[in-house]
């Protein structure tokens, strides 16, 4: 795993977006298309803003999947990840080939259908974030490191739901759906390349646990270290608790 520590959130987003754009362009040049996985959440705002301004990415050749979605939340709800992606990625880039996890339909069926679509061909790149509790997609600790199916239904834990309230997506914890459809850890690791975008001081604890501690289900994002081609982008704040020696050596 490569660890890139940038001065602040803006330079982080810029560096990560340039890296992402390079991967997308290369894949399109090499194979004529690119299959990507997009992440959501407030930590991805600036990254997606930057990524969508590149004029030299042929988005018509992109096929997009996403990591997770709340069960039972309509696309009109401000916290809906489909709404998020529609506004922040799809409408800006005009990606025509995208696959949404429909949280209002039978989740088991959605997970199965979407998993089938996803597994047709390899994923070139996955953009991911890390939750305050160390989660990867909606795989809260203790995460399922073993499921080989692409998507599973998960229960959201208290810390994860509180984070959603603090980020302003919901008024109270009770309003946050208790369940979600999430891409599995194994599926995320199947991406050829992973770019993790993790700004802000509120992530510092999780970043430390996932980069310096042991790899295990209690720190779901720690598994990224087993992936041979992952780059994690941090800013000074999210990297503030890292052992300075280790941060260089990773």
């Amino acid at each position, binding site marked *: 795993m490569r660890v890139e520590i940038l001065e602040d959130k803006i330079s982080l987003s810029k560096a990560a977006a340039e890296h992402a754009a390079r991967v997308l362009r290369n894949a399109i040049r090499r194979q004529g298309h690119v299959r990507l996985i997009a992440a959501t959440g407030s930590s991805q705002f600036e990254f997606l803003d930057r990524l969508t301004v590149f004029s030299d990415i042929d988005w018509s050749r992109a096929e997009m999947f996403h990591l997770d979605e709340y069960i039972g939340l309509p696309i009109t709800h401000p916290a809906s990840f489909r709404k998020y992606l529609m506004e922040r990625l799809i409408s800006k880039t005009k990606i025509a080939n995208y696959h949404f996890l429909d949280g209002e339909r039978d989740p088991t069926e959605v997970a199965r259908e979407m998993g089938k679509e996803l597994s047709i061909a390899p994923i070139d790149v996955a953009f991911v974030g890390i939750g305050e509790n160390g989660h990867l997609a909606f795989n809260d600790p203790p995460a399922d490191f073993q499921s080989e199916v692409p998507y599973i239904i998960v229960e959201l834990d208290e810390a994860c739901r509180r984070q959603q309230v603090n980020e302003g997506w919901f008024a109270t914890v009770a309003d946050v759906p208790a369940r979600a459809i999430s891409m599995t850890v194994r599926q995320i690791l199947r991406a*050829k390349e992973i770019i993790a975008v993790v700004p802000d001081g509120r992530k510092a604890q999780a970043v430390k646990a996932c980069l310096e501690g*042991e790899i295990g289900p209690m720190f779901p994002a*720690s598994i990224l270290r087993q992936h*041979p081609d992952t780059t994690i982008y941090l800013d000074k704040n999210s990297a503030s608790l890292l052992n300075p020696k280790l941060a260089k050596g990773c």
Partner: protein
Amino acid sequence: MTSSPADTFISARPIRKLRWWIGGLLFASTVINYIDRQSLSLLAPYLKQDYRWTNTDYANILICFRLAYAFGQAMCGRMIDRIGTKRGLTISVLWYSVVSICTSLASGVYSFATFRFLLGAGESANWPGATKAVSEWFRKSERGLAAALFDSGSSIGGAIAPFIVLPIYFRWGWRPAFVLPGLLGFLWLVAWRKMYFSPKDHPRISAEEQRLIAEDTADLKRSSERPSPRWRDLLKLPQTWGTIISKALTDPVWFFITDWFPVYLVAKGISLKGGLFAVWIPFIAADFGNFFGGIASWFLIKRGWSVGAARKALVVFGGIGVMLLIPTILTVNLALITFLFASATFCYAAFSTIANVLPSDLFHDDSVASVSGLSGTGAGIGTIVAFKLIGYFSDANQAMGTHSFDKIILVAGLIPFAGMLLVLVLVRNTRATELGLVRSI
């Protein structure tokens, strides 16, 4: 294929100590042999990703190599006896260099497995071939050192492989990373074809060296006129089993380190880009361990220890030392893991030298090769079983992240210890020694 020596070296001056140049060639062929086979284990973490292999898939590919390698040794040994060292090693190196280059065309588990099988078949000729070359060129007293020299090519090859294979991979991808090691084989072939002839035909050998070598070979011929003991008779002796076990319970651990160490590091979350040194240090340590095993037991014998006691002292040293693998379970610190692996491979290699020497300590000339072949096959079978289990358990425990290899490491640390105990029990002077069936140690 045949070129007359006289064409190549017309009125050339003799080279002093020519046999050590031959030893150098054999060392180089072992180095290249190991670079070719290490390419896959170094690229495994990346290939696993690209081709979505599980550890079980990877294990099956390795096993294809091991199968061909284990049984190939016996067959290639016979082939080389028949067609001669020069032609035998020419075919072997040509074969596996072409296979290594062709591996760049692989596209999945089955094609990789096929190429690995072919590679194993070709590479298996190296040890029998080099051993034969050593027996042609070196006197008894120097044979141990000559064997240690070419054998140490395996550690050196393993140590330099990451610096050749990984930079090519990072720059140009995995396919060229199989091509370049293959091309090295062709360079070697040019040197081999020009420089290797048997001592009696060699145009550059001095008369004095030729005479010294001829004296020893005459001795060999006499002993081969007796009928060789049958396998069945050999297998009745505890010493034979002790010798087989000394290899069968140590080699799998070494091959675990050579073939799985990069995968183990990645499972612990350690990036290979930052951990290049970790991959070659255990090989260097093994190299020192090889020579340490030989020199230390020679020293003890000089101090008046019996051969058996001196050999067993190193077996105990190795059997206990390999347990240093076990504490790696407790850490994700790369420097510490590397140090522990290096210490363990040092101890393993000392043990392994003894395992290689035991057949000649215990058996008469006419059965040394048979017993050594049996222990090679025993080691092959042990390794295949071990790899099957490693693939299975590491996949089953992948939910444990850092700890997915814990049980495997624990067993790997304990198996040579068990081997040590069995060697202590089985290798001793028995009634068979009194009857003259085995040598006293």
